[in-house]
């Protein structure tokens, strides 16, 4: 395999959650289109940002591509291995070992009944890395010091830690199986602002040291700009724009991206004042019953009749810059 191959390839990924009502056995009466046909790749060693408002499907996308939710349709390969085709437990474990996830809520993501040692060593146990318990304990301490925690804390329970510390434990767990790829699912949004930077720096540091690849899910655009190489924007289950960080931030093409960016406070007040704010009207429609055509059209200031009728194609308008909008010039 050539090193130039992307590490993660996502093709036409769909995840619908059935809405059921049942008498005896449940019957599907509708579906939430949380992720509706998205495609992208993540290159080795890069950090791809995935942004969008809450409820747009970013978290679902992240979890589905790891196979934590069974997909409705689509393919995902990680390091050349098809995630959804893995039937045998051995194949699945191989994928699980390469791809890990860090969660948003450091309070919910650690089993409250387990000690730190048990939590961090679980991946090693499952993947039979270091079968010797003693060696495993040593490794746990090593991992903890790697994320900036004292190895003395291994026998404590999660509730004895602060949020930031807990998130570090979560990171240590993710690292325990020596993964290539980590989905960072809003890893900092639940943390105090003062801690956020520390964690982001830790993640960057780890990326450098271990050559990790991140899919960084966030709704905080400024943090994304800080850490990501490329950024993808999602709206209501679909991807509307994807591009190099600077290209996207400087030349947003999709009206939704423009709106998002215009809401980001810019540290320089002069620039900020000069900027034109774009305020979106209306609420995000229900993914249970998404709008026809372009999903953004009910809130789009540029919407025309065509946007109501026709789903815009996912096109590459410039090298590495993809967008789905009728109004963007060919």
């Amino acid at each position: 395999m050539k090193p130039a191959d992307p590490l993660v390839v996502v093709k036409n990924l769909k995840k619908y959650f059935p809405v059921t009502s049942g008498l005896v056995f449940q019957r599907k009466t509708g579906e939430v289109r949380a992720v509706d046909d998205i495609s992208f790749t993540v290159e080795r060693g890069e950090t791809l940002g995935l942004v969008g408002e809450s409820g747009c499907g970013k978290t679902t996308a992240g979890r589905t591509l790891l196979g934590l939710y069974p997909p409705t349709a689509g393919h995902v390969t990680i390091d050349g291995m098809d995630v959804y085709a893995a039937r045998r437990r051995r194949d699945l474990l191989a994928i699980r070992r390469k791809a890990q996830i860090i969660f948003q809520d450091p309070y919910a993501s650690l089993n409250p009944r387990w000690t730190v040692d048990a939590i961090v060593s679980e991946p090693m146990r499952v993947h039979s890395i270091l079968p010797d318990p003693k060696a495993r304990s040593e490794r746990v301490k090593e991992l903890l010091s790697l994320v900036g925690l004292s190895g003395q804390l291994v026998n404590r329970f999660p509730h004895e830690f602060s949020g930031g510390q807990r998130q570090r434990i979560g990171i240590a767990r993710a690292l325990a199986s020596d993964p290539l790829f980590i989905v960072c699912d809003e890893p900092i949004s639940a943390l105090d602002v003062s801690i956020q930077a520390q964690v982001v720096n830790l993640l960057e540091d780890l990326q450098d040291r271990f050559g990790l690849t991140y899919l960084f899910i966030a709704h905080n655009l400024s943090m994304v700009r800080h850490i990501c190489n490329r950024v993808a924007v999602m709206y209501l289950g679909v991807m509307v724009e994807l591009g190099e960080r600077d290209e996207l931030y400087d030349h947003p093409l999709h009206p939704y991206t423009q709106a998002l960016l215009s809401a980001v406070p810019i540290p320089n007040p002069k620039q900020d004042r000069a900027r034109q704010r774009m305020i979106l009207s209306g609420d995000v429609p229900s993914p249970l019953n998404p709008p026809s055509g372009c999903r953004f059209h009910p809130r789009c200031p540029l919407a025309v009749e065509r946007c109501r009728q026709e789903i815009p194609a996912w096109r590459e308008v410039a090298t590495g810059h993809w967008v789905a909008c009728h109004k963007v010039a060919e």
Partner: protein
Amino acid sequence: MLVLLFIYAFGGALIFPESYANYTDTSLRLSPPSARHPFGTDTIGRDVLARTIYGGQISLIIGLLAVSIESLVGILVGALAGYYGGFLDSLLMRITEAMLNIPEIFLLIVMAKFFGGRIPEIHLLGRVFSGSVIVIVVIIGLTSWMYLARIVRAEFLSLKENEFVLAARATGTSNFEIIFRHILPNSIAPIIVSATLGVANAILAEAYISFLGLGVQPPTATWGNMLDGANNYLESAPWLWFFPGLLILLTVLSINFLGDGLRDALDPHSRAV
């Protein structure tokens, strides 16, 4: 109080050997309480005091064993239904609901007949238990797991969406391990409360079914079967039914207290009776 009852049932065994509890002296039948037989004697001259001691052992053992079975089935059904969801959940929950809709005593009677006389005697720890003890344990276990299953299912439904479960899945931890090592320990509090109260219910259930003559068969004594036929001696030999009845009441009462206390301690949100 519960401790006292346990001491009564198990410590009493040090004073009277089991053969004494089953020792019949037909010439002494139905003698009222006296210094020699503080609780009187029964219809074939057995000492009621000694029988309440051995009966207590069996009743308590039945209570504990039945709850073990109840918990096993309840946790298994609840966990599978809650964790896997979908068709399995629907199927298991419909069965649970169906069983819940038949009053327990009817189910017990039908089950007792279903298993009646099919299991031979069991020799355990140097003692002989009539096969009906096992039957009773099994049927009580099999007719009482439904509430627990519902509790466990609800716990699993809420816990399985927790991120630490997702994290475990992302790690590649097997479903079995997720169910039993991740989720179950986190739902243990309501299970403990429910199981404690379950012991009281199991002892009562044994008493009911034995009272109706379908439970544990002689010569093994239980508090319940000591009461069987006692209403024929309502007037002439009240000691026959009073002591075992009182002991059942005390046991159930103290277990209920314990369960209530546990609930208050473990789950401060629900304080209903």
